[in-house]
């Protein structure tokens, strides 16, 4: 590929630029289309929490260092604090609020309760979103693997051994 720079510049100017004031964004969250007016700098996490009243995903650091804001975008676990909401247009966002089937808890949610895999509960939605994704990714063969692949979710209450127990329980139940 070889392109002359003047061509590039001309085409570059044609790029649509949105903001910096509030713009209309349509997000698909937990299977429902939601429209909101936000500035382009609004993170997915703040869009969920402050604009859509979906406060399951937590803001622990806002710096990508704790994992409490973990949600899925197109099924992949990601950090919503370092994701701009606008970049999620056209993608499916899933939060902990979308995990249960009505009143019926997801197996991982039940296992977290049964194994007492949390204390204060603040990291729990992120842990659960990560744990369910972990099983889907196939990184839960043994405890060493679970430990490593769950290390992006800090639990300051240090319920880690119980989190592993919950993951094992769901893994073994599925087999």
């Amino acid at each position, binding site marked *: 590929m070889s392109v002359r720079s003047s061509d590039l510049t001309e085409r570059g100017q044609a790029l649509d630029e949105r903001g910096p004031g509030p713009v209309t964004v349509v997000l698909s969250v937990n299977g429902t289309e939601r429209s909101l007016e936000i500035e382009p700098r609004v993170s997915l996490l*703040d869009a969920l929490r*402050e604009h859509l009243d979906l406060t399951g995903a937590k803001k622990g650091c806002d710096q990508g260092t704790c994992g409490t804001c973990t949600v899925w975008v197109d099924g992949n676990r990601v950090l919503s604090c370092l994701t701009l909401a606008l970049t999620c247009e056209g993608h499916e966002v899933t939060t902990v609020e979308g995990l249960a089937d009505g009143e019926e808890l997801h197996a991982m949610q039940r296992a977290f309760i049964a194994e007492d895999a949390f204390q204060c509960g603040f990291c729990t939605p992120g842990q659960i979103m990560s744990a369910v994704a972990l099983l889907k990714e196939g990184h839960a063969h043994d405890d060493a693997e679970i430990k490593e692949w769950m290390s992006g979710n800090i639990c300051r209450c240090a319920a880690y051994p119980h989190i592993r127990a919950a993951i094992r329980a769901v893994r073994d139940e599925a087999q």
Partner: protein
Amino acid sequence: MTTIAPAIGQSLDRVDGRAKVTGSARYFAETPIPGISYAVLVGSRIANGRITGIDAGDARAEEGVLAVLTHENLPSIAEQPPLIPSLGGTAAPGQTFFPMQDDVVHYAGQHIAIVVADTLERAQYAASLIRVSYEERPPLVTLDQGRDQAYVPDRVFGGWLPGRVSRGDIETGLAAADVRVDTTFSYAANNHNPLEPSGTTAEWDGDEVLLHDATQGVNATQITVARQLGIPLSKIRVIGHYVGGSFGSKAMIHDHAALAALAAREVGRPVKLVLTREQMFTSVGHREEQEQRITLGATRDGRLTGIRHHKLSPTSHFDDWAEPSLGVSPEIYGCPNFDGVYRIFRANTMTPTFMRAPGEASGMFALECAMDELAGELGMDPIELRERNLSAVSPSSGRPWSSSGLLECYRRGAERFGWEGRDPRPGRRREGNWLIGTGMASAGYPVVLPPNPQRARARMYADGTAVVQAATPDFGTGVATVMTQVAADALGMSLDRCRFENGDTDLPNIAAAVGSAGSGMISAAVHSAATALRNQLIAQATGDSNSPLYGADPVDVVVQDGVMTAGTARESYAELLQRDVQPDAEATGTWSPPGGDPGYGMMTFGAQFAEVAVDAELGLVRVRRLTGAFAPGRVLNPKLARSQLMGGMLWGLGQALLEANHMHPRTGRWAGASLGEYLVAVNADAPDVDVELVEVEDSVVNPLGVKGVGEIGQVGVAAAIANAVHHATGRRVRKLPIAIEDLL
């Protein structure tokens, strides 16, 4: 001691579990409040000096900005009450200093401005546009900078403890020793870092204000902010249902709570103020950097003749604060001579504060590492040395223990861990690149009682369901779960018909749940309220000629599943209330802690065991397993108690190997003010943890004999790990955390 009833002692799942796993549990910042605005705090860049000018023009010009408040335009507070630990039930500010009252800067990060805007993003950006000019002076922040200026204060720890503690004659004691160990330990500063940042929402309605706060005590917030704002207690309500961890960072009421209320009043709109992660390092206190020196003297047969324990640490310009590291060392072993001295110096820091096992965790690292050295010097098994110095009475008062269990903790812990047959020689076990070692330590944590009455309320509805209430929030302790159990037993009801309601100053007053005192004092109040209600309903039935129980002696009435029974006569609570056309019945209960001298020594004991693998070539330490045996009195819910003890033990792992912060000696700013730099344990660091509960009866500490599990889990773990590292490698590391470079 009250007879053990069916619900207490059950491993009930958390009653708020469903709310927490579905994300429907609302933490303070998640309450929908119409018209909310967002406040952002600006911290000082410098650590020492004064502000010569603040240019907030650009900030004010940003779209959506509602106010920029600085010392130049923020209304003065009514007063700043003195620092008194929040267990005291009085105002409990984190330090005796309130910012933005003048132009003086005492520490980096000191709040110097508040920006309020209609969105979070706008407030954050406007805050970054404020230009501050300073007259800057070199700060004094580190131990090495302040060492020469240290003094012995009259009192430390918010005035609750003396600066010097001694008994017997230390010089005589050490002179009489056959063997002496004299070592100095250094400790990096620690930051709590609960995952939920602190913060407060404030919403005014006329002259009344409603706060949602992340706090260990809603009443503490209420009283503190009322004094700071100069408003009546009746005009301020504080709600804090769910709190995302605290570990002491929310034990005291830091200035952001009052600042949120002031900001909301200024802008005439509700305000949400959430600290950033960086501000969790500068604005809620920390565990101070410190140095401790221990001298032990012992006879050849292992009896301690003297313990000298001195500590040096920085405090703020306003308060004589040191975490009480010398609280357990005079108590845990029988030793006639003890000398403990706190030395502190004034530094450019905010006042340090409580952090999980505040003082006990650091003090017992020093003592228990020194004991391990002593055992080595004596050629004695570390447990044997400790058992020889076991004291049946509190060594400082000579009074019997209200309960102990320490010997049982050593024995059961050792058995579960597999201590017996341990080859004491260091460096003998190798697996590939890893040297394996084991170590142990004692744990002790004082039983602290609140100085004033604690209250709760119980209400029975005519449908036979009950609500029991107390103001206390649940910051992960499981209080909502265990109090449901306590209430069910006292009322004689099944668990599913009882609900515990909490986290609101409109409910009966409870002191802040700190110092592992929460479960003891709250269960006492709840038990008292529920018992009062049961007795009231029994009295109503036995005095009511329409009741089948009419005429029965109330003491003969037993209640089970909400049914009162005397002989063959039966009536349920619901039947009684419905017949009397009474929608509900209510009783309050008050527990007054034994005032003055209870006549007993009161302490929670435990024993910690660790196995480590050390890659001596690369300096890596990996904790393979931890065993802890604890005697926390009665265990209300073993499942939840084990979780909290396990968490405490893993905190000990973090203390031993990871957690450290340092101030830049020239700028006075923290070096690592993020969770990327300040390392706390992640899943990969956490081995499986074995928790053994040694139940001991205690009829002194409170009605249910509950001694608490919040802190004891951490005490001694770092020492057990350091002792295991020595066992693995032959190297004594006398600093925390133990880092790679210490083992190369």
